């Protein structure tokens, strides 16, 4: 094999290892350390498990977790919508490429932009309610943004709207890579659209659907900061109805000067996401095997 210098690999690795060691390694160690300290500013005294105790007995923390879990309810809707639309696109009717461009559009706009727009649309005296009143659907004119009972569902609506687009593309690209022979055979056998979809196509999409579900779960638990920050006025409002774990950490760090508490929550979130990552890898390995 190769070059004479035994050090060469390490020279090539060094920048990458240095960068990762700083951004990740150093951070992991410190966040773990801080979670056991009462940090004010840049450091503080050791207090053992106190931060964890405080957080785990605080209703606000559990409310945040609950909200993250409630957001998981978005996933069945996302999968359903994405499946339906991708299967329809797969028929490749006339103009399907235009539809595909349009249906992917929600994912193109950055979350802050779309959240600002939605926030205006769903104002109590805003256009959505105006249209509903015009259609005599007065009972549906909820206080989408301002009601503590509704606000989280409004955020969920936004998430579904945007993330389904991703599902459409993922599913469609899987469909387009499938062997047409099976579909043809089913059609010749007289199966209608639904039966073809249910018995032939969807089973072959199982791994990509699982994959989509798992990354969506990870998203709902640890990547909804932008949605909530923009819709809830930056503090999980109205009331505390849109507070989620990421926002809890952010607020503890920047608004209530409690980096130790923020770290404790971050550590717990990290542990949970580690477990989910493991699941993701198992799913992905299966998907790779299936495609091979």
């Amino acid at each position, binding site marked *: 094999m190769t070059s004479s210098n035994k050090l060469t690999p390490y*020279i*090539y690795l060094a*920048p990458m290892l240095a960068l990762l060691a700083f951004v990740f390694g150093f951070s992991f160690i410190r966040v773990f350390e801080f979670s056991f300290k*009462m940090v*004010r*500013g*840049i450091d503080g005294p050791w207090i053992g498990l106190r931060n964890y105790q*405080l957080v785990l007995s*605080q*209703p*606000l923390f559990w409310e945040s977790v609950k909200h993250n879990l409630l957001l998981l309810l978005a996933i069945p809707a996302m999968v359903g919508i994405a499946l339906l639309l991708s299967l329809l696109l797969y028929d490749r009717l006339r103009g399907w490429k235009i539809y595909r461009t349009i249906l992917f559009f929600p994912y193109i706009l950055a979350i802050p932009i779309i959240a600002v727009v939605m926030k205006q649309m*769903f*104002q*109590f*005296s*805003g256009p959505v309610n105006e249209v509903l009143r015009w259609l005599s659907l007065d009972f549906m004119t909820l*206080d*989408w*943004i*301002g*009601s*503590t*009972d509704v606000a989280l569902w409004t955020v969920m609506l936004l998430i579904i709207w945007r993330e389904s687009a991703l599902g459409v593309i993922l599913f469609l690209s899987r469909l387009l890579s499938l062997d047409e022979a099976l579909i043809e055979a089913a059609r010749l056998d007289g199966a209608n659209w639904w039966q073809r979809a249910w018995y032939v196509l969807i089973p072959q999409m199982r791994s990509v659907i699982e994959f989509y579900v798992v990354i969506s779960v990870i998203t709902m638990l640890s990547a909804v900061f932008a949605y909530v920050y923009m819709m809830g*006025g*930056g*503090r999980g*409002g*109205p*009331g*505390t109805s849109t507070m989620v774990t990421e926002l809890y950490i952010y*607020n503890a760090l*920047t*608004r*209530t*000067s*409690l980096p130790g*508490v923020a770290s404790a929550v971050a550590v717990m979130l990290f542990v949970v996401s580690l477990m989910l990552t493991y699941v993701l890898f198992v799913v992905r390995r299966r998907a790779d095997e299936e495609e091979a």
Partner: protein
Amino acid sequence: MTDKANPAQQIGRRKFLQTTAAGAGTLALGSLFGPLPAQAKNPELNMWWWGEQELPGLQAYINESVAKYTAATVKPMLQETAVVISQFQTAAAAGTPPDLQYLWNGIYHMESVWLGYLKPLNGLMSEDTLRASNPTILSNYGGNTYRAGWYPLPMVWYYNKDMFDKAGLNADTPPTTWPELLDACEKLKIAGFEPLGGGVQDGYWAEWYMSHAFVQSLDTVGEAVELFIGDKDFNDPRYHECWVRLEELRKLGYLNKDMPSLELYPGIDLVVAGKLGIGQSVGSRLPADSKATNGRIGSMVMPVFGKGKLAGKPIVDMQGLGISEKSANPEAAAAFLEYLNTPERLEAFYKATGWLPSSSRFNSDLIQDASVKNMWKAWGQSPNITNVTSLMPGQFYEQAAIPTGQQVVQGKLTGEQAGELAARVAKEWREFNPDLVEKYQKWVIDLSK
């Protein structure tokens, strides 16, 4: 890996070294956007400030003042709302704070005092100037004053005089007691208007409501602190009466329907636009709003329901400036503050922002709008109290002060439940922050005077 023969790479690394050596992080590639460092032997003062966001024109005033001031080179930097305090604190902890720091009232700067980040101003600035600038009682700790007042935020209740006329109310004598307020709201409602409210979605309305209503139950500002440190309890009806009253307003149908989803400023606009009869506002808006309506916006103190000694007094909050404990040049910094308090600068402040500086040295005859002049006479130039929410611990502010108002307005909580929430969060604050509890206990002494 780096190709030493490539000059472009060398320049890149030099720039990187330059930024890290700068320390306080105020330079870096973005030095295009700030004032260039002066060559002079002048002392250099870093000034981190805020306020353009609420007083457009302030930036121009600062730039002009800095340019005119020759005794030192001041480098101002405008901060974002979310971090104006936290960034100061972390810089101070690291030993590299700015010389001059903008300081909101109350706990927002008192925390820095407790951490040892701010210098007492008595001794650095003249007693006269300091007192004239009215830093308010909340800037005192252990007998020292830690801020100079910069510009006031009179907290007023707006009412629309035209709407009052149409509803058959006397626009020149707004309600002063609670029954009078309910009567006025009823008349407004009968006339087909939405009587009272604003926008609470972003939370600030709920904070202001506490400033006006909660304070009515207190005899001294120190009593509020006692509620946080646990000597008194929010579950006591006297202390959550403010939310019971808010609930009353909602139940009587006096609050505007879109209040939960509207934000603060659009809510105030409703009063100015003649769509809402009464609302909470801040005095610095009055010049523009008065002009837009030809003087038909009135200011009133919140009508009284509470039995505390502080009820019915006009409220003036104060934005201020302070000097870091670790400043290399505290005398130079204080001199700059003195400069900003000269009558010429005070007048320039008014001209640049259209708003009043806090110092009593400001010639109030310069105020052109009659409504503003009257408001200032009744608020700033008369006995007033300050904004009690400014002394709230951050955790209480975020997790109780704001959610209570929002949820009572929306009908999710009763007044009593709001009191329970406040009590619970106060207790959590004590558990999360035992070090701050100690400091607050000492602060009560200064605040009960």
